[in-house]
């Protein structure tokens, strides 16, 4: 096993973000969140707390949600990073996004990108979640405005929309 020590100065990284390889030059101490926001101008993911307590920075890496505020960018090389900006296909919204609009699954909207990413990941692993499974899977995303009942509805509606697309 080779241990690779890099830093403390800036090091070149190649990150795969929303299907594209991007090269950045950043200090090893940089979080994925700060690199996404400041280097790549992907400001959808938010910092609500900076210590993994609110979920506003949730992105999907490979097939799992992570808190981008607790993830070092340097640890993400060779992995597939998905952010809210990569969800839409042109102007075509992802069913989860559509459902959040229909069901008013937000209020101020600051936590919404994180909520949406958690919901997308949940439905990828469990296309037909029960309400209890939604509550459990999304308990890591704080919504201080208290849009929770409509967020639950949004996820359940999105599950039905995905299903009907498949049938159609």
């Amino acid at each position: 096993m080779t241990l690779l020590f890099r830093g403390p100065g800036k090091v070149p990284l190649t990150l795969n973000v929303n299907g594209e390889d991007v090269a950045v030059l950043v200090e090893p101490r940089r979080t994925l969140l700060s690199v996404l926001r400041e280097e790549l101008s992907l400001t959808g993911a938010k910092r609500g707390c900076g210590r993994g307590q609110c979920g506003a920075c949730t992105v999907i890496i490979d097939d799992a949600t992570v808190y981008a505020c607790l993830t070092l960018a340097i640890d993400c090389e060779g992995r597939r990073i998905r952010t809210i900006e990569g969800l839409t296909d042109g102007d075509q919204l992802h069913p989860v996004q559509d459902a959040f609009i229909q069901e008013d699954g937000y209020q101020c909207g600051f936590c919404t990108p994180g909520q949406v990413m958690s919901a997308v990941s949940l439905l990828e692993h469990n296309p037909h979640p029960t309400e209890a499974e939604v509550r459990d899977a999304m308990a890591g995303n704080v919504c201080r405005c208290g849009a929770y009942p409509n967020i639950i509805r949004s996820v359940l509606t999105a599950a039905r929309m995905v299903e009907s697309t498949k049938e159609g």
Partner: protein
Amino acid sequence: MPTIKKTKVEFEGRIEEREVIVEEEHIERWARDATMQVVGKPTPRVDGVARVTGRAVYTYDVQLPRMLIGRFLRSPHPHARIKSIDASRAEALPGVVAIWHHDNPPPIAHLEGREVFDEELAYEGAEVAFVVARNERTAEDALNAIEVSYEPLPFAYNFETATADAAPDVLTGVDNWIRREGDVYERGDMQAGLSDADVVVELAFSTPVAAHCCLETHGSVAQWEGDLVTVWHSTQSVFGTRSSVANALGIPMDRVRVICDYMGGGFGSKWGAEAYTLMAAVAARETGCPVKVMLSREEEHLVAGYRPGSQQRVRLGAKRDGTLTLIEQEARVATGAYGGDGPVIGGPANDLYRCPNVRTVVWSARANTDHARAFRAPGYVEGTFALESAMDALADKLGMDPLALRMKNYAEISPARNEPYTYKGLRRAYEMAAERFGWADRESRLPREEGPWRRGWGMASQIWGGGGGPPANALVKLLPDGTAEVAVGVQDIGTGTKTVLTQVAAEELGLPLEAIRCVVGDSLPAPFGPGSGGSVTLASAAPAVRSACREALRQLMALAAIMLDLADADVDDFTVQNGEIVYTPDPEKRLPFTRAAAKMGNYMIVAKGARGPNPEDKAINTFGVHFAQVLVNVETGQVRVERVVAAHDIGRVVNPLTATSQVYGGVTMALGYATTEARLIDPDTGLQLTANLEEYKVPVMADIPQIDVLFVDEADVEANSVGSKGLGEPPIIPTAAAIANAVFDATGVRVTDLPITPDRLLPLLVKARAEQ
């Protein structure tokens, strides 16, 4: 033409008669049974796509070329004096652009009469130094490299310690008391109220310090172009920010533009310019680069305000039949080192029930914390918890149904103002909620016991203002392709203001929602609008939008009349139906809206509208009732709220979809207040123990009960031309009492100290069992 008028304006429990400049509205009120195309229909937000795609730009997301980052070094002590500061190591770091502090003050060093960098630091988190650096990491490195020597001073961290004999000065040389005599409201004769009573209950309560926890922390970005400054500010008041920035910087108002396009929650804590706003503006001017300052989550807890905790006592007297003879409420609050009078905790006691003899008093004092701020229904949340818990205790003592006791003391006219209401639908709300909840047969529907769990049911009522008033203005432009721009000087803090104002404009103009672009949250294009507080936004701004749209249509109708060869016709004889301008005396004469607009070419119709005055000698209030069902584990003290039914009277509901969201939000925030949330301060160090989102426990999805939301939905036609009142605050008011009352119903234990955590409840349960 504008005129000067006296009008009564209510704001967060305080009623003021103000002289305001108003324009008489030449507009018919929307009738109670008016047929509506858009208003009253569940309408998804007009800016939904921006919100779900991450494209919505919050202050936190503003990124500008050459932008620098500002951060504060803050006091690690609850009370201290700076002995010395050495910033030389920090200044030498590459990427550090500027540092200001007490020994090197910024060119503009005062904000609202206070030094930004004072020698005396009166609370944990007080500003010690400000660093501007190329990026956040460098700014943080610099903060760590500043060496400060502090002289710790004695401190008082709450009301009790600040008002004790021999309490230390919270602020050197300043009286710790703010209102030593108390803020008193009184009517009737308390002695008579007591002697008339057959039954008296008296209880003591305490409520926690509650933190707003806006998910977007407080922050500003400032950019100068010459002598013009643009400030992006996460705020509930773009106009309040404009004037406070202009005042603090000593520059004319027209040099300042304030933008708040999207904002991540305020709940009462985000108003005008603060130290971070001023320092962003000063630093941007001095460095020639845009500067952004966002508080960290910890700073948000330390310096961004809170609902003050309270110690309360309530005494109620009643006749055997439940008729109230006496309401007495006392409250003690600490509002911080630089705090104000404190909230109107006695508001609900003064105004919710018909009772001849009422006395309420709030004493306030300083303490070594940051200052308390308005927090969603300030005072009313704390006051209603105590009042409505006491009402429940009274019902229990009288052997009366809690709902029947409320009905018995129903106020047909405003008790505090002794004036009729424009409309009051609380009785209807009681009926709707009781029916949906199954209040009458609650005992027979579900078991009282499930293993260690005991089930109980409780309810509580609520009163609030939310009538709004002048001044509020709107500007409408009709464009040649038949679309319209509506600019209003309010902001959408997440409640859906932009959407409901678009609905009102669409309704009035007879255009589809898609043909209207509503601009809020920008002080430059929009005429003045009020801050988003006191639940006033909709009731203030929507009538102004209607009025501006009506004026724009009158101008368009005058042109349409000429186009239809009806030059002498009265413009009021035209209406817009399905996109066509129709001459009502002869409906054959019609013209598509788009054709009339196109004919204008580049002549643009620009119309302004203003909010008319409130009716004289009438009280405008909002009302509601919450019913709660809880399970209490008598072995662990755990409380699980199973269900809340909320019914609210807010006049006409413009958008049932977003209105329902407001109620979910209020109930959820109240659930945290009732069961989990408290800002804790260590008595030995005076430092916060809960300055993060893990130890300060806000509700998460797993905690949320089933919430049923009902609206009386009767237009309050006397209140304003739209018939709507505010909803931001009402739904957080009654929930905590409803939950506590349900806990009592389940266990026979009345918890009078919030939050109802297992460590509080379990000893009470054990004690009650021992006494059985």
